[in-house]
């Protein structure tokens, strides 16, 4: 809030020096000098702020702007870039994998919502009921997040191995047929979502646990006095109280899962038969396998627009609550 009031004061102060020269009305001058003093006293703060802005400009905003420009250019880095207009976009739409990649990404996001949205909520609700060993359980749930992604992927590769893998061994023990987890077009994406959910749900679970802790106990007491069952308490107290946080994590989940890359890159390479080629995987291929940075930038621009829409929704939501 403090920063807001300072920046609000700034334009009036520097943009309109006339009252100081004329000095017609003593009251505005007093207000102005107070503002000037405020600005002067905070010059160092501004300088530090400028440092942050420069760093952001160099490492965040400049690459974004440059990325947008690259989308309209043919880039080789050895020669000056050549403007090609909308050519990169035209080539994108001609690529038969383009539609596949968007479909696969949407499918992954949808599946991730089904698994990845419900799982941490259910886990948090269950964990919240424990009176003893809560800290230990929380840590256990968070543990997969701490594993380096490559370790997670290699671990799951062994789980999924159609030969001596953990899952197929387990199925065999209960006399069920072995599955081609990553090798079947129908199962591959589901398998990737499972890995992703397992690897990432720890953070969301902790957020839910914190939110659950914030629900006033009296509400549950009142519900209990009214004779509400566990399910009714969950439905009529917990979920309405958590509605806002659930919405936020839902949007963050969409933003995160649409950028899925490492799971298909390491586990399936986009296969079988392009069933797990995602937008980012295709973008990666354009840039780093075919060295076509213009095409990759055009693709990232489209992704940026789609994610931007979700981000807008997220901002709207957080602002309306704030």
């Amino acid at each position: 809030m403090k920063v807001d009031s300072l920046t609000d004061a700034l334009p009036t102060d520097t943009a309109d020096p006339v009252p100081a020269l004329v000095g017609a009305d003593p009251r505005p001058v007093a207000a102005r000098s107070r503002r000037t003093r405020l600005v002067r006293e905070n010059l160092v703060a501004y300088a530090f702020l400028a440092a942050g802005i420069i760093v952001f400009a160099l490492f965040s905003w400049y690459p974004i702007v440059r990325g947008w420009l690259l989308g309209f250019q043919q880039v080789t880095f050895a020669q000056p870039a050549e403007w090609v207009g909308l050519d990169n976009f035209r080539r994108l739409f001609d690529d038969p994998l383009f539609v596949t990649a968007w479909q696969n990404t949407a499918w992954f996001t949808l599946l991730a919502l089904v698994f990845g949205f419900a799982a941490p909520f259910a886990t948090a609700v269950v964990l919240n009921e424990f009176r003893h060993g809560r800290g230990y359980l929380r840590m256990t749930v968070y543990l997969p997040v701490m594993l380096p992604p490559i370790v997670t992927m290699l671990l799951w590769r062994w789980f999924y191995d159609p030969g001596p893998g953990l899952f197929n061994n387990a199925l065999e023990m209960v006399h069920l047929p072995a599955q081609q987890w990553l090798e079947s077009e129908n199962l591959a994406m589901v398998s990737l979502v499972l890995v992703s959910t397992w690897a990432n749900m720890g953070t969301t679970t902790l957020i839910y646990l914190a939110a659950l802790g914030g629900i006033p106990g009296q509400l549950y007491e009142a519900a209990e006095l009214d004779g509400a069952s566990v399910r009714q308490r969950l439905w009529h107290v917990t979920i309405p109280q958590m509605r806002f946080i659930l919405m936020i994590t839902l949007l963050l989940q969409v933003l995160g899962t649409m950028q899925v890359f490492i799971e298909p890159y390491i586990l399936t390479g986009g296969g079988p038969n392009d069933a797990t080629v995602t937008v980012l995987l295709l973008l990666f291929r354009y840039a780093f396998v075919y060295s076509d940075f213009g095409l990759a930038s055009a693709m990232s621009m489209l992704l940026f627009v789609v994610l931007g829409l979700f981000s807008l929704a997220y901002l709207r939501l957080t602002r309306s609550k704030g």
Partner: protein
Amino acid sequence: MTNTSGSTSGCRARRHTGIALVGAMALSLTACGGSSSSGEGKDGVVTITVNDMPPKTQPVDRKIFEADVKAFEEANPKIKIDAREGQMDPKTFAAKLAGGQLEDVYYVYFTDPAGLIERRQGADITPYMKDIPYLDKIRPEFQDVFKGKDGKIYGLPNGQYSLGLVYNRDLFEKAGLDPDKPPTTWDEVRSAAKKITDLGDGTVGYADYSKNNQGGWHLTSWIYSMGGDVAVKDGDKWKAAVDSDAARKALQTLHDMRWTDNSMGTRQLLEIPDVQKMMGSGKLGMYMAGPDNLPTIVKQFEREYKEYGVGAMPGDATLGGGNGFMFNPKATPEEIKAGLKWLQFKYLNPDRTEFNDKRIVSKDVPVGLPLDRLYQDDVQAKVDAVHAKYANLPTDNFKPFVERNGTLEQKVEPPNAQQIYAVLDGVMQSVLTKKDADLDQLLKDASKKVDALLATVK
């Protein structure tokens, strides 16, 4: 926000500290974008950056490389070599070029030059070629890989491989096969794979790649070996040739081995390290590879060379690839000349073969793998004779490869190879993961996609 630092006086000292800090930060940021250290010094010494220096984890190779740098600098006091680890990595290449960090002389695979030349990411070295000894003895087909459509030369080859069959001799024996006579047709491969799989205990007869463009690369050589092509030149233009009887036959064989004989294991979507691991663990009978795979398997999995054999590619043709060096498009003529001298000294020096073999053989580095048939006629014969003299490997195990490989047609990779391989990856995956894959439809679809890719080749 720029107004904040330019406003009126007051708290001068504090303000200056802040601004100085900001300035220092900005300076340190701009300092990141330095350039490589090459260039001509004031005393006429040219410093060139080169890559391909082995990492510290390979101490023997690294020592040899460093000794070569020293010897070269002593022989050429006006040239200094600034050697870097690593080879061509498409993931970092463009960033290094854009940031001025690309080496003056850089290592490439045969799949790279066409694209690099087209994007003008390599320097034209045509004017400096006359001083390269033995240039006329380097096989012209490998030199052609580095020629642009303008007829100019953009690099030099230094290594070459042909795909063949790497196999486990013990498993061959156990399965009642003759380890000195590996299969020479795909039917023989199929029946051998079946016999090896029948040994049980998780043994896989034959494995192949199907991920990260490696499936497409191998399917291309399957098709070559069956007498087909993936792309053919039609006048000035290229067009797909994937939808052919040869390709159908290749897919059918793969399909039957995977689903009828069950001799390709259940795990698919494999790539090089997976298959090498299977071979290293003694559970794999055969896979398609060049002889250069053996040192990796032996070293990484602590095996012995005598356990393995190498046969030539079954069928009538094989896919040949290789590697070489290209030059930074921003390199000066002096740097290019110095770089060429270095390449000739280190990599294209048949006169140094004896010296080289002698020193590495004493350090337990393998000598005698059937590799690098880079030269023609008498020069290659001389090099081969030296290798044979110092060989410390069971060279008889490679005889089937050496003897038959010369009789096979050697075919190079198609234009836009990596993109085509990405398409063919899908075909390979379908056949290996879907029992009811429609082979005709797969080839028809792939052909359409390859045609679209080839339309962009000029």
